[in-house]
């Protein structure tokens, strides 16, 4: 009986591992090809004979790619900082203060999660043309400055912060803004890091809105640049794979470092972006 279960377990491990490798196969192939040069690109070998980083060097030396990379970094960081600040402030306010219209405001913010982005992009685009935000960083950034999802997440985490601690701050003469920043915020750090990771990855990968708002090639974000890559590199697939690797590898690294927070956060909330 015991050996039967052991064999069962072994089979389970073997199958999970084989399918897992199959899942990673496209990535393995992508990275392998990004390190191949010349005629080796179209061979079926997963291990390049002379692995080199030449393609990466070429990519970062070629005109626009470094801009795309930096644009994505910049946009991701600004949006993430803004979301962390505003979503936690609003979540805190809706959780710890009593005032007229509190419920209504909460429901209104929650209901924005139901509006699909696809419906908003046309009005956003028209608004941007009117105020001159086309082809600007601000144009890429402004729709994501706050999120209903993040506010909801932070509000539910502030429920766990005891009111006595906040009152102690009041007795010590701290202002309300400082009480939020100095006392409440450090207590919800796990939620903040989860929100930061989701927001950054979501923006790093965002495609539809940057595609619409940006026309000048040096203002592209990485995904937009990648999608027009073929034009620039004339279907040089090893270069496409190198670009895809650059878009993917930072997310892998973030994932490996924060795997626990990401998995817990996803399981807790079940929402991306």
């Amino acid at each position: 009986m015991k050996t039967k279960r052991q064999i069962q377990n072994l089979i389970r491990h073997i199958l999970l591992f084989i399918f897992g490798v199959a899942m990673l196969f496209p990535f393995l192939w992508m990275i392998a090809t990004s390190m191949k040069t010349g005629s080796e690109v179209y061979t079926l070998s997963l291990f390049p004979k002379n692995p080199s980083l030449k393609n990466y060097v070429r990519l970062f030396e070629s005109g626009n790619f470094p801009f795309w990379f930096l644009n994505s970094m910049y946009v991701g960081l600004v949006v993430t900082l803004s979301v962390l600040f505003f979503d936690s402030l609003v979540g805190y306010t809706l959780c710890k203060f009593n005032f007229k219209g509190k419920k209504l405001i909460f429901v209104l913010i929650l209901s924005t999660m139901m509006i699909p982005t696809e419906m908003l992009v046309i009005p956003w685009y028209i608004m941007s043309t009117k105020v001159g935000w086309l082809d600007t960083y601000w144009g890429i950034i402004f729709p994501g400055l706050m999120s209903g999802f993040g506010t909801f997440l932070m509000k539910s985490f502030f429920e766990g912060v005891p009111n006595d601690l906040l009152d102690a701050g009041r007795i010590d003469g701290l202002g309300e803004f400082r009480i939020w920043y100095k006392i409440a915020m450090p207590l919800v750090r796990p939620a903040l890091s989860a929100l930061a990771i989701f927001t950054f990855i979501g923006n790093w990968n965002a495609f539809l809105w940057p595609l619409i708002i940006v026309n000048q090639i040096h203002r592209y974000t990485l995904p937009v640049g990648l999608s027009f890559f073929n034009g620039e590199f004339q279907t040089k697939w090893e270069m496409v794979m190198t670009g895809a690797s650059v878009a993917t590898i930072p997310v892998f690294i973030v994932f490996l470092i924060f795997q626990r927070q990401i998995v817990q956060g996803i399981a807790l909330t079940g929402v991306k972006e």
Partner: protein
Amino acid sequence: MTNITTRQYSLERKKQRYAYTFLIIPMLFYIGIRFYPTFYAFYLSFTDWNIVSKNMHFIGLENYRRLISDEVFWQTLKNTFTYVIWGLPISLLLGFTLAYHIDRVKVGESIYKAMYFVPYITSMVAVAWVWRWLYQPVPIGVFNNLLTAMGLPTQPFLMSKTQALPSILATTIWADLGFQMIIFLAGIKAISPTLFEAARIDGANERQVLFSITLPLLKPTMIFLLITGTIRYLRIFTQVMNMTFQGEGGPLNSTKPLVLYIYTSAFKSFKMGYASAMTVVLFVIILIITLIQMVVTRDEN
């Protein structure tokens, strides 16, 4: 006594003032960047506006009437629902199967989770181009090279009217099933171990445990995944745009989803009013699904 209550009262007043101060900028944001554009989209859907000509006419329901007789619109709607109807059940089934087995291994759980989950968080544009390359004809595409090596006939994949949609769907499911797996796994872990213990003492076999304990108790998880998944698959866009020739959802619109048609109508043909009418259709579909979720989960509670 009165002194204390007035002090408390003034503290409450002060806190109220702070609350409103904290909320001013966010409320302006939500009104200006979320609600106003939503109403604006509805309004645009009743106009004939294209960005090139500066004048805008109110044309009532004309856009919606045109939609009803637009064959491409019906084709994209059909494609969109094909993605939902095939993609969602398959990714749910695979996600559950993986979660069920990963839950039962004692070592390596986090490695398996990582292996299956990583595609979900990577850039869909990058992923779409990698798969587009895998699907290429010989001598470039890896899949066709493998087929040749095994002595099988090569396949047109993305070039074929019948194979293109399933090919894109395979990529989508591959990228999506990690999410379903993680949520299912969390659901399984949340089931009280004493229930499994009790079942084992009663002599239930694994199949009985699965069908009479695990699956029934996962009902809320499944409802959640069904609703969010439907909405996610309804909004398919990025992979189709990046895997089809010139991002047109071809060959011959056979893979084009609703959102891609919205995008090309608005930003290639500049038919802003017409495209807005389509976004209203999408909004209404998503609204109906969200309302169904609310009703169902309320009944659950």
